[in-house]
């Protein structure tokens, strides 16, 4: 902690006004620091340091909080009012029996720990003659309502996504898993932001080595600020140079819960709506909890479609160039002639033509993310149709290229994971270059390079290509097909869990 490291611990003095002045000084006379003196003549608000200087021995207690972070109505009702009614009794009640009180509070003996609590949004109370301070949890910051994550929509399943509040996110998972084995351990990362980070896993299922590794990697982070879970993802990943995400980010609480139940570890970060799941494999990035909400035929169909869509998104433009420009002898004669006819009058080589269309689509896609939702759809359609039509009319691009590029763009959205989609978007260009310079061999060579690179990757000790490589037959039956739920007796060996048993006999006596 950066604050503490600057000096030793400061004990709390018996004078509440003096303590409040010290806090105000430590915060650089912050204008959002609210100080209420009890039972002083009045409650002072504004220049905290001046208020502190004016304090006198008649002040029985001082309440401090940061405006906007604490619930002022709750402070008035639960702290100020009892103090004004009978300060001595209230302080005695708060100090001696805070565990029994409905108020969540903690006792601190140093100013530094109290300041940390204040910065977290807690309410501080200094009482006259006491060498300790009390911190009350009374959050009052504005919360975003729970809603469905826009990038991970599902037809069937809960419409519940994480918010930016850690305790709400933890509670969402707790509501799914009412098991005392659900372990939640917290730590703070960031010398300035002191961001709360929670690690969640099932104590009797998750591999203890993986849990220890997660803790070790998080504890090793020395950084001033964590503003989003993405910061942690980049710092705990197994390979910092790879294009592929070696951790899984999601905003869906059911996805996190499902991962925890599989024996994986979830990392939830305060002020971030994304949770991180580790370890992860490339196979996991194409699966969605929704697959299991349908019967296995439909679940399998969805997965196979995703797989085909993903492969099209990577390889289609490269394959098109390879077959149309380099190895055209492989195409059926009529198809080759049709493609050649559609390219008549196009002044660019096919590589340039494809790159031009791909780049245009990338710009549309990026701009579409930032356009107001009311106009994005209309503008997208208009721009796509009008520009596409005009480009074909004046022979800048051919119809065939347009079909290939639009199919690729649509296919790239078939996967449920945005991050891996970006990785494939990058690799698509290598495929295009491979196809243009070396035809079908180039596609094979680039494909081999990609798989070879993926074969070198691992996530927290788990092969990134699992369960394909190493071959894990028990997990392979659930990828790319979806294993029937009534056959999912055991957890996959991929995660090396302590307890693999998941399900017993699901057939009742009446239903043999």
């Amino acid at each position, binding site marked *: 902690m950066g604050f503490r490291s600057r000096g030793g611990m400061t004990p709390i003095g018996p004078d509440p006004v003096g303590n409040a002045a010290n806090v105000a000084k430590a915060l650089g006379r912050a204008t959002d620091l609210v100080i209420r003196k009890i039972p002083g003549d009045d409650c002072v608000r504004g220049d905290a340091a001046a208020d502190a200087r004016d304090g006198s021995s008649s002040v029985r207690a001082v309440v401090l909080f940061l405006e906007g972070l604490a619930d002022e109505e709750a402070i008035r009702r639960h702290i100020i009012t009892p103090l004004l009614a009978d300060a001595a009794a209230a302080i005695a009640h708060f100090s001696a029996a805070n565990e029994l009180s409905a108020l969540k509070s903690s006792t601190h003996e140093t100013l530094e720990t109290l300041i940390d609590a204040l910065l977290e949004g807690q309410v501080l109370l200094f009482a006259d003659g006491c060498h300790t301070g009390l911190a009350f949890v009374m959050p009052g910051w504005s919360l975003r309502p729970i809603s469905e994550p826009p990038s991970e929509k599902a037809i069937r399943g809960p419409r519940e996504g994480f918010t930016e509040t850690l305790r709400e996110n933890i509670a969402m998972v707790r509501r799914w898993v009412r098991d005392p084995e659900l372990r939640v351990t917290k730590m703070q990362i960031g010398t300035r932001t002191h961001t709360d980070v929670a690690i969640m896993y099932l104590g009797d299922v998750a591999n203890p080595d993986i849990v220890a590794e997660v803790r070790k990697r998080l504890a090793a982070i020395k950084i001033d600020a964590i503003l989003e879970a993405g910061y942690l993802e980049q710092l*705990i990943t197994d390979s910092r140079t790879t294009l592929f995400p070696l951790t899984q980010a999601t905003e869906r609480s059911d996805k996190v819960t499902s991962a925890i139940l599989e024996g994986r570890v979830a990392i939830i970060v305060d002020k971030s709506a994304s949770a991180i799941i580790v370890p992860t494999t490339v196979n996991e990035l194409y699966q969605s909890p929704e697959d299991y909400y349908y019967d296995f035929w439909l679940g399998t169909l969805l997965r196979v479609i995703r797989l085909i869509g993903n492969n099209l998104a990577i390889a289609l433009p490269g394959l098109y160039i390879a077959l149309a420009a380099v190895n055209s002898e492989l195409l059926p004669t009529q198809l080759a002639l049709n493609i050649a006819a559609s390219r008549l009058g196009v002044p660019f080589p096919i590589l340039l033509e494809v790159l031009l269309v791909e780049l245009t689509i990338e710009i549309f896609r990026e701009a579409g993310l930032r356009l107001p939702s009311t106009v994005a759809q209309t503008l997208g359609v208009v721009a796509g149709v009008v520009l596409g039509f005009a480009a074909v009319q004046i022979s800048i691009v051919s119809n065939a290229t347009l079909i290939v590029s639009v199919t690729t763009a649509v296919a790239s959205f078939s996967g449920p994971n945005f991050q891996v989609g970006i990785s494939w978007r990058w690799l698509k260009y290598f495929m295009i270059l491979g196809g243009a310079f070396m035809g079908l061999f180039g596609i*094979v060579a680039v494909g*081999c390079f990609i798989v*070879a690179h993926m*074969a070198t990757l*691992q996530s927290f000790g788990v092969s990134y290509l699992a369960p*394909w*490589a190493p*071959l894990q037959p028990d997990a392979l039956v659930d990828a790319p097909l979806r294993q029937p739920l009534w056959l999912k007796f055991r957890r996959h060996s991929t995660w090396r869990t302590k307890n693999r048993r998941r399900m017993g006999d699901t057939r009742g006596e009446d239903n043999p």
Partner: protein
Amino acid sequence: MTFPEKTSLRPSMYLVLIFTAIIGYDMLSNPLVSVKALGNSGYFAPLAAAVPVIAIIIAMFALQKRFPGKSGVQCASLIIGNVPAVIINLLLIIFWRVFAALSARNIMTLVSTQMLLKTPLWFFSTIGYLGIMYLAYHGIESISRFVAFTFIPATIIIIIVFCAAFPYIDIRQLLPVLDFSVTDLIKGAFSMSYLYFPLILLFLITPYTKKLPSARRFTMAALALSVLVFLIQNIGAIGIFGTSGLNRYTWPTLEFAHVINIRYIALEQIGVVLLTVWLVLTFGAAAFNYWGTALALSQLFPKISYKMAVLILALPTGLVLLLPQNIIDTRFYLLIFERWGVLAFFGHPLILWLIAVIRRQGKES
């Protein structure tokens, strides 16, 4: 950041690795060799060649049992002493690397003639070679993952393509069955034994498992699967072209795949699909071979780390692979290596095992 992980291979990986190493080495031209040896009954040649190979596999696993945790290279110095071991192992490594480089060059020539007539050979050879080195550099775990990832789809496609050629077979081309003498059979087995040279890799991967009996069973399964693929392929090639027809082609398997005509399929030629899929297996097999020679070198000279060995071998391999075209007939030298390689690849482990048995060295069961 790396998570500590001990390198080990599951017994099932022996099936995947050995099958890929065998099939990825020469799948496209072997019917030519088999018909030269046994005529119309050439399809028996891969089967005949596989029989003595079983003894080699048993010998290699027996050697591992005697010297647990030691590779064949390390066993050699314990069995015959340091100096002779260094000499014969070094000869093996040189022979192996040159052979592997010549094979790779041969495959690149095939790619050039079948797919990339206008592109300079050095260009795509360099690209492929860098990929192989990259994979080999990351060690056996990465290689085994790559191979495991490609094994199932590639094997299924290859078998489907071979089976798709069956309707075009003229059964008369395959007759008479068993029309050869025992001497011919032995000669055929000898000439086809080069198909199984990649089994020398067992010399190095046996220390990576503790379940030796299981790994041996999977290795035998890999051999059986390879023999099955060669058998189907030879029956298809001989059945379609006959003995005289086959002699016209350098790559008969590819030619017989060209015969296949599946209506409504998006591609005009199935042969190139077969070649493409086989190239993926070849990529894994080449990386596996590269790993084998680099590991052997690093074990022979412990001061050279494995990764250093990978880089050291890059130059000689690159020189062979990138030899200018039409100056040296690499195919001619490859045939010499294929003919006499049996002494190096199979003689070496067999002799070591025999000496260990005679001298009663290592752990005796």
